[in-house]
C-alpha cells in the first residue's frame, strides 16, 4: 500500500478535522467519519464493520510491532498503522 509517512500535525482546528484512528490513544472511543480509500480497498475495510458512523474503541497495542487492536461492536480487529491512518475519526462526545 502506498502511503506517505505523516508527521504529527500541530494542534489546530485543521489538524483536529483530519485525525485518524492511529492518532487516538489506547482506551479512547471514536466515531468513524470517513475512509480515505477508494473502490475495492474501501469496501474491503467496510466488511470488518468499519463504516461511517461506526463506534470504534482502541483496545491495545500489540507488542513487537506497531499494530493495534480495535473493538467494533462485538468484534476485535487488528490494523497496521498504515491502514488505521486511512480512517478518519473524531472523539466520541456521548
Amino acid at each position, binding site marked *: 500500500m502506498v502511503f506517505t509517512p505523516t508527521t504529527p500535525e500541530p494542534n489546530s482546528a485543521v489538524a483536529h478535522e483530519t485525525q485518524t484512528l492511529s492518532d487516538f490513544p489506547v482506551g479512547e472511543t471514536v466515531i468513524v467519519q470517513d475512509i480515505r480509500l477508494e473502490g475495492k480497498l474501501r469496501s474491503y475495510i*467496510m466488511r470488518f464493520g468499519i463504516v461511517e458512523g461506526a463506534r470504534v474503541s482502541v483496545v491495545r497495542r500489540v507488542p513487537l510491532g506497531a*499494530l493495534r487492536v480495535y473493538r467494533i461492536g462485538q468484534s476485535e*480487529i487488528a490494523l497496521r498503522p498504515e491502514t488505521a491512518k486511512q480512517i478518519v475519526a473524531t472523539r466520541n462526545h456521548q
Partner: protein
Amino acid sequence: MKVQFQDPSTDDRTSSPANTSGHFRRPIRTAAILGPPNSGKSTLFNRLTTLRQKVANYPGVTVEHRAGTLAGNPGQTITLIDLPGVYDLTAYSEDERVAAQVLRGEMPGVAIPDLVLVVVDVTNLERQLTILPDVLRTGLPALVVLNMADLLSKRGGSMDLVKLATQLGAPVALVSATDGRGVDAIANFLKGNRRAPGKSDLPILQEASACHNWARQVARDSDYRPPVPSKWTRRLDGVLLHALWGPLIFLLVAVLLFQAVFAIGQPLSNGLQNLLNHLGQVFFFWMRVGLVRSVLVDGVWRGLSSILVFLPQILVLFLFITVLEDSGYLSRAALMADRTMQRVGLNGKSFVPLLSAYACAVPAIMAARTIENRRDRLGTILIAPFMTCPARLPIYTLVIAAFVRERPLIGPLLGSQGAAMLGLYVIGFLAALFTAAILKCSILKSFPLPFILELPEYRWPTWRSIVIRSADRAWVFTKNAGSVILIVATVLALLANVPFVGGKRPGLQQSAIGQLGHLIEPAIQPLGFNWRVGIGLLTSVFAREVIVGTFGTLYGEDPASRNLSLQAALHTDLTPGAAAALLVFFAFALQCTSTLAVVKRETNSWKWPAVQFLYMAALAYLGAFVTNFVISRLWA
C-alpha cells in the same frame, strides 16, 4: 433460549404471493454450507458428515472442494458441500469467486445446490448477517444457521428467533456446532421432504454501508441483545499480548512447536523408516535378487515408506496448529510476528509455516493453508523449502566431517564444524529472504489488500476437531502426494537397474542413471563436481539424504576407494572448493519429490512446483559455482 428452530413458511405468511413463488416439494440432494471465516462452519460440516468426506480441488484454483454425505431417508443421500469461509460474494479473493460460482451453478462438475446453509456466529450477529443479502439474492432456498448458541446464552445474550425468521423470510436454526446442540434439527430439516423455503423479498444492497445498516436494523427488530464480551479473552489478552510477557510466551510457544516436530515427529519418522526398511527386507527376502526385486524394494517399497515416514511429522504439526488455531492463540502470534514478516513482504500468518519448515517443508507447506491471503500463501509456499530441514543434515555432516578440521572458535561453545553447520542454516535463511524480496517485486506484486486480522475469542479446542483435522491432512498428503512419490521412486529404481550388461543387472556406474551422471559431468565441472557427484545429484532428486547412500555405493564399487571410509574417500576425491560448493548446492536446491508433490497438491497446478524447482536449481548452480570459484582461488 427455548425456540431452537423457526420456519416462517409454517406460519400464516405462507400463503402470501411473495413467498409461494419459490416453494417446491422435492427432496434435497445437494446442500452447500457457507459462512464467514470463524463462524464455525467447518465444525458444523464435520458434525454433520463425520468421516464421510471427500477432498479435492476445484478445477484450476487452489481452493479445496470439500464434500461429505449425510444419510437421509431410505434411498436418499444428501451431499453437503463445505464452501470456503467468505464475508460476502463480492469475489475479491479466489475463495469468494469459487463460492459465488458454486451458488450460481457455474462451477464445472458441481451441481447447483438445492439449499444453502448460511452459518453465522450469533454472538456477533450484526457483523455476520451482512453475508445474507448476497446469498439470498442468488434465489437459492436458504436455512440460516445461528451458530455458537452456547456462548450467546452463557454470556447473557438473547434474541427472538420468530422475529428474525420473519424478517429474513427464511427459516433459522439456533445451534452449537461445538457441543452438537440443535445440529439434529438441521439434519432433520435436510432429510425432510418438506417445503424448501422460498425466495425472500430482501432489498438489494450493493453498498457495504447500506448492508451494515440493514443488518443492524434486522438485529434490532429481532430484539437481539449481544452477549457481554468474554472477560476471559480480555484477561488472557492482557497477558498474552502484554508488552513483556507477550513476546516471551510467543517465543516459548515457537520453541515448543519447533521442538515438537523436530524432537517428537522426527524420531518417530526415523523409527518408522527403520521399521519399514526392516519390513521391506522381510517381505521380499524370498524373491530372487534381480530386477523385479530391486524395483519392488528400491522403488515401490521405498516410495511407499517415504510417504508414510512423513505422517508422524504431519500429525504432530497439525495437532499443534489445530490447538493453536482453535484456541485463538494463532491469531495473536500472527500479530506479534507481523512486523518481522512484513519486512520480507509477507504477513504475520506466514510465521508458523516458515518456522515449521525447519523441521520439514512438507507439513509446513500444508500449514500455509492458515494464510487466507492467496498472495502471501503462495509466497510462503515458495520460500519454505529454503529453511534447513533435517534431510539436509546427512550430507552436511558427512562433508563437514570430511573437510573441516575441528577446532574451538568460541571456547567450548562453538567449534569450527558447528560454525560451518550454522553457516549453512544462515545461507538457507538468507536465500529465503532474497527470494521473498524478488517475489515481492515480481509475481506477487499485485496490489495487496490491507492486512486486517480479526481476533477470535479464546476457546478450548475440542479433541474432535484436533483429531479430524490432523487425520484429514495426513490423508490428503498420502493420497495426493503419494502417487507422485511412488512414480518417481519406481522410475529412479528402474533407471538404476537397466540396461542389463551380459544378462546381468548393471552396477550403479553402468546403469542408465550412472551414464546420465557421466553425461552431465561437463555441465557440473565448473562447480568442481565429477561424475560421482553427478550421479549423487540425480539420485537425490528423490530425497536429499539419498546422496549419502549413493556415495557409499559408488565409492564401494571403486577398487581405489573400496577400503577407505566414506569420509576419507570423499576427502581424496573432491577439492575443498568442490566440497563447499556441494554444501551450498544442497542448501539451495529443491531435492525433494515430496515437497514438489505437496506444492503441486496445494497450488493445484504443476506450474508452481516447476517454477520453484527450476529457480532453486538455478540458484544452487550459481551459488555452487561462485563458492567453488572463490574457494579454489583462495586455496591456490
